[in-house]
């Protein structure tokens, strides 16, 4: 299909991703996307829910998925793109196998969350929003995960670490590396 898409100047596109790369796909991928789309009514209110499911399955929103979603739900591609770039739950580039979320809620902030971010940055050599070269870890800072009573909090993969200390981070990363090796 011939669709002209201009990459917006924000978000993951700043990282040098070309639209032509985004549109590469395999048939199996398309089948999986259609499977997700089939679960929802083919109308605009399903858009965010569909993108949520695609994001969970692929760990990002492949370009082919955005096009397919636009066609099936009957939502202009521009609007699909605007939703995909508006919400923080979505990424246009693959995120790592393990997402490290460091909570930056107020309670975490005053109990030293910035030390946690700095330690992860130091250990992995990435900044918030970036993924390690081996595709293992993505670091994100999130605005409150609602576990404020255990501040500061970080979530490594699925595991919550309450009253986290910078000194525990190397071991937590190592544990995840072993699981995903």
């Amino acid at each position, binding site marked *: 299909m011939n669709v002209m898409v201009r990459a917006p100047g924000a978000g993951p596109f700043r990282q040098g991703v070309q639209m032509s790369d985004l549109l590469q796909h395999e048939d199996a991928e398309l089948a999986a996307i259609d499977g997700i789309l089939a679960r929802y009514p083919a109308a605009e209110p*399903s858009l*965010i829910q569909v993108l949520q499911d695609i994001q969970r399955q692929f760990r990002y929103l492949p370009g082919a998925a955005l096009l397919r979603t636009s066609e099936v739900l009957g939502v202009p591609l521009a609007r699909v793109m605007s939703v995909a770039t*508006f919400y923080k*739950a*979505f990424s246009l580039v693959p995120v790592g196998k393990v997402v490290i979320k460091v909570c930056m809620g*107020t309670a975490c902030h005053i109990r030293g969350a910035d030390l946690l971010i700095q330690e992860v940055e130091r250990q992995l050599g990435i900044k918030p929003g970036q993924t390690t070269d081996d595709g293992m870890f993505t670091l994100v800072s999130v605005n*409150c995960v609602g576990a404020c009573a255990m*501040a500061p909090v970080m979530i490594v993969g699925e595991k919550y670490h309450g009253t986290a200390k910078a000194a525990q981070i190397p071991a937590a990363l190592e544990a995840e590396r072993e699981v995903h090796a």
Partner: protein
Amino acid sequence: MKALKLDDFCSMVKHAKAEAAVARRSVLVCCGTGCLANGSAEIAAEFEKQMESRGLRASLGVYTKKTGCHGFCERGPLVLVEPDGILYAKVKARDVTEILDKTIVGGETVERLLYKNPVDGQRIEKYRDIPFYKYQTRISMRRIGHIDPANLDDALAAGAYQGLYKALSSLTPDQVIDEITASGLRGRGGAGFVTGRKWKSARKAKGDRKFVLCNGDEGDPGAFKDRSIMEGDPHAVIEGMAIGAYAVGASEGYIYVRDEYPLAVVHVQKAIDSAREHGLLGENILGTGFSFDLKISRGGGAFVCGESSALMRSIEGRTGEPRAKYVHATDKGLFDLPTVLNNVETWSDVGVIVEKGSAWFASMGTPKCKGTKAFSLVGKVRNTGLVELPMGETLRHLIYDIGGGTLKDRPFKAVQTGGPSGGCLPADKLDLPVDYEALTDAGSMMGSGGMIVMDDRTCMVNIAWYFINFLIEESCGKCTPCRDGLYQMRAIFEDIMAGRGKDGDIERIEALCEGMKLGSLCELGKSAANPVVSTLQYFRDEYEAHIKDHTCPAGVCRELTSYRIDAETCTGCHQCFKACPVGAISGKPKEKHVIATDKCISCGACFDACPEDAIKHLARHLVG
């Protein structure tokens, strides 16, 4: 079983109560997000396993229940033994055998696992005697921690859906609205709009389809009571919404849950499914001809979607940009149809108000604010967790009697309420009675009930800067004063924090605040300046210390602060050495330690780790 008529509901409840009565003792393991993080799932599994293998269920009638958040997250994982009311704190899976041996079989308490009162060092056996619980009045959180949220029978035995039953069996929609209005219930999401009045407008509005929505997009950093309600007692929310739908004539509803709350999504979905299976949602509920069904809409991770019009756009599958409010949602809301949107806590209050009557609810609180309010008490306070109190109690009662005072008894500096739209209140406001008006008059707001306690180690300039950053990330970008004003503000703050502040900075900040307030469309933009305005109002001297003296009185702003170890006080405990992330501290255990200023990044980790108060922070320019 599915209840097809009103009588079926009564027999369903009777059956549920009989089932519940089989358990002579229950071991309630808190499985809220906090306790789960500390391993409560393993503890629950261990109880299950041992009760099974030792035959305790058959011989003693004892059951394990995985409940929602007990609220006292600081002491988690928590295990409550009912009906004895014994609370065990910081339980580990290896403690399970001892609890079963001593408490369940032997009938005595495990002394070492009881909560220890930090004031007098005494262990407290019953959870109702612990100060954290003793002063609370739980209405919206009435069943949390006592029921298994995944089990509808358990909720029914504890009184769920009695309000819906009463409304459908004996009240007209108008009577329901009158009852909610008379109760004085106001929106618990923060704005405090009178719930009954909102419902009345939606009832009057013309439209063949109407909606009721639940705002579960609890975005205020530092607040988590809605998460706890959705995770721990989702039926309270569903019941409230069904009553609301009956009152306004809606047949469809959405619960909008934050993307960051995965467990809440699971529990709410389970609860919706089982309510539908039992005939409490869906077509012709209890044979009364009233039909109502619910869906979950998962948020995409955007703070602004907690704003009502943005939330509705998000459910419609669009970007969450607010719109002007000259048209009310009760006339044209979701899909331009009449819509009632209430907060999780508001919905959770509705069922029990209808059940027990408006007079009961209105007997609590202040003349203008009735009932109770849930707060999440966090930050530099000893007992962190969820607290529900009648409106009008003082901040001091909340922070000192329930919260146990500040961590390590450091001097109290401020309490931040109302999230990024709220403000910081200083020590001389501690006797303020907490309700919507009192907090607003003092320059803050209720918001969603976050109470973040700050001590002398919190820099108020840094806190204002923190909220500016938060809002920069969350501003939707529609209005220029909010979008660009925040960036300009941040630039000035970063200068001040780095010792480059100059005369006139405070005035420039104030002008920006005024512009944002006047020139933004939605409440997020209009109130974006509040954290700055309130810190300027109460802590202007701290700003001036940064600007004029180039010092950070709290020792937080790194470029203005240096640390050194007082050789007299240092005991050589080596804690600072272990805490330093850059290896700037030298010294062997039991010897005096020293900080190498060229390596030190002024992060303050050593200061917080030192048990002897031997680490001092100084103005950097004085040290050289």
